[in-house]
């Protein structure tokens, strides 16, 4: 079966609702299907990647550490919209560092997260076959 390009667009903050958490479950399951996977974090979706999330006090499951596993699942095309970060007073340093080992470059550790402009993101959206928005 031909491989398709899947794009997961994440626009919701974590914890206030389960969409972000259940979206990540789709990405993890989808990784087993050997399709080409891209993740985009836009609007409040950028909050999903915030460092130091501690859900002990609210008693919710903290799924943020699971993002670190994405590299092992060959999910390493992760785009964060620059405009969304800026509006929220955030920068890439506020986000969980996500990396992968590049098998085509002697397993060098590389950054999975790319902060991109709206225009670049618009191009990425146009290149997909299947778009899922949670």
């Amino acid at each position, binding site marked *: 079966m031909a491989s398709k390009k899947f794009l997961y667009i994440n626009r919701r903050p974590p914890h*206030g*609702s389960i969409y972000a958490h259940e979206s990540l479950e789709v990405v993890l399951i989808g990784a087993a299907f050997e399709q080409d996977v891209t993740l985009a974090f836009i609007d409040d979706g950028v909050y999903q990647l915030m460092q130091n999330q501690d859900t002990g006090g609210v008693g*919710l499951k903290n799924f943020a550490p699971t993002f670190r596993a994405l590299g092992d699942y060959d999910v390493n095309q992760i785009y964060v919209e620059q405009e969304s970060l800026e509006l929220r007073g955030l920068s890439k340093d506020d986000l969980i560092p996500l990396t992968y080992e590049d098998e085509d470059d002697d397993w060098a550790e590389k950054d999975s997260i790319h902060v991109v402009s709206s225009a670049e993101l618009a191009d990425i959206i146009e290149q997909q076959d299947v778009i899922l928005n949670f």
Partner: protein
Amino acid sequence: MKFAILVNEGPYTHQASDSAYHFTEALLRAGHEIVRVFFYHDGVNNGTRLSVPPQDDRNISERWSALAQQHDVELILCVAAAQRRGLLDDDEAKRAGKDSNNIAEGFQISGLGQLIDAGIQADRLIAFGD
């Protein structure tokens, strides 16, 4: 002080039920009286006994049931909202000709009047929702 609590969203999908639960626990810790917890809109879905969450996650329905039992808290699901969404007790199921019911221990089905009554009885009414 007398409190009434309104929960407008179902379990897991929105944080509303969690926030309401933690607030209710804190009310009990502070010695306040709870007139009633009223579940409306998708909030009625909190009353299912068929939920099977992952083992490392909280069981929202059971947690409410336990609170009702331990502290004698009244948990009311709005009947009209519950019927639409498929939450039935034994009586409702029989009346509707359904072969089973799915309501959890400690929850009762009643009318919207119980929400207004809670607003009248309580010193404070607080709503949690989407």
